[in-house]
């Protein structure tokens, strides 16, 4: 029994049906961790992108070093660091929060590059035209640069959303009951791994396909008229 659901080992089908609600609870945790981590990556990545393109080297250089460091160290190391080291200094977060944060930090290093590439793809000519017309810096950013950068950014961001979903099982090592962890517990207790793990694979496929379709819909909906995309 897990989460109040009993499993039925009378037949493979009955087993699968009986543990599906348990796995769905785990899947919900997976989705929450992925979405929360993705949101952290979107916000933190934008911050890093802005810092990296700052005119002052005293700002851009440390930002570049930090993102490079994040990118070049394993997610698991960062996760352990947040989970085991921070409490030594009095920062105690729930396992789920720690995990989502670790995912967000890791992926912010990638998303910052996506932002930077997207913003830089808007040519200097566009900035000059806006300046010649006396548009303010804010107006130029929000109405000239961002509308041209977003359609370039969305597809790449979508890939990272899918990727982050697939990295959520790493959080099982710090006791987060995400889908894979739940399936493993079911396997440990029933000595039957084939069906729970196969179901995890199937549910993952559904999840990532839905996420990809969502990104494609968003991409199709974005106004792209006239914007030269590669």
């Amino acid at each position, binding site marked *: 029994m897990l989460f109040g659901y009993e499993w039925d080992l009378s037949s493979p089908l009955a087993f699968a049906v009986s543990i599906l609600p348990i796995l769905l609870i785990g899947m919900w945790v997976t989705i929450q961790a992925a979405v929360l981590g993705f949101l952290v990556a979107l916000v933190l990545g934008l911050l890093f992108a802005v810092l990296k393109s700052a005119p002052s080297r005293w700002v851009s250089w440390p930002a570049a070093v930090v993102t490079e460091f994040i990118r070049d160290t394993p997610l698991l190391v960062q996760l352990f660091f947040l989970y085991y080291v921070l409490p030594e200094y009095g920062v105690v977060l729930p396992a789920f929060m720690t995990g989502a944060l670790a995912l967000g930090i890791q992926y912010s290093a990638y998303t910052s590059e996506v932002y930077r590439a997207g913003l830089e793809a808007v040519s200097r000519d566009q900035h*000059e*035209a806006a*300046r010649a*017309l006396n*548009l*303010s810096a804010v*107006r130029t950013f929000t109405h000239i640069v961002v509308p041209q950068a977003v359609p370039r950014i969305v597809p790449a961001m979508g890939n990272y959303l899918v990727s982050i979903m697939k990295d959520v099982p790493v959080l099982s090592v710090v006791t987060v009951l995400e889908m894979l962890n739940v399936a493993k517990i079911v396997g440990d207790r029933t000595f039957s791994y084939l069906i729970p793990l196969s179901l995890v694979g199937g549910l993952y496929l559904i999840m990532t396909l839905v996420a990809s379709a969502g990104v494609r819909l968003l991409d199709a909906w974005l106004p792209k008229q*006239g914007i*030269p995309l590669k």
Partner: protein
Amino acid sequence: MSDNTDPIITFDQVVKRFGDLTVLDKLDFEVKRGEKVTIIGPSGSGKSTVLRILMTLEGIDGGVVTVGGEPLWHEQGPEGLRPASEAHLRKMRSRLGMVFQQFNLFPHMTVLRNITEAPVKVLGLSKVEARTRAEELLELVGLADQAQKYPHQLSGGQQQRVGIARALAMRPDVLLFDEPTSALDPELVGEVLNVIGQLAEEHDLTMLLVTHEMRFAREVSDRVCFFDQGRIREQGTPEQLFTDPREQRTREFLAAVLDA
């Protein structure tokens, strides 16, 4: 143009460097109100830099530039001139408009929106006023029926005419043309030059043009300046400069471009 009007643009001993390269070498230059001046010269002679400095796209490393009698890159402080603040540059910039070689239209905006964006957001016109103004200007450049199109749906020549309308919509005192036909296919050059020529004839707008179209420069200008190595090597009426250049360097340049 009469000689007794005050100059609207002056360059006084202006120096501009890019690294070790001196692009403008103590340049002295004046344009009178309403005057149509063409700048010609070999590439790298600093022609476009003059326009880019006026449009505040490039700063200067020495000397003083004035527009409408006020310093452009400086403002009056308690102890003489000091470098201009962004607020001062914004005020000065409103006197100038620029037409770019690559048009630089906003690709995600319709033709109409390209022309109305700045009048609404910078000049504070109502959308209706801006639209009316834009429609008049589109009429002027012969694109009245293209308002709802996006730049990529237009030919290069049409895009450049939108670029001209967009600059005019800000009602500048001076319009700068930076090689407006250099990026166009040869068969599209004429329609753009016609519009510029018509503007020059019918409006008292001050126009400063950098171009390689020598015949056009001859027709449209009050004065032609030959730039070489960051200075004006020779200037005069088109008639004088094109038929009877005094300087050997001018003669060589004209021979080279007119043969081509």
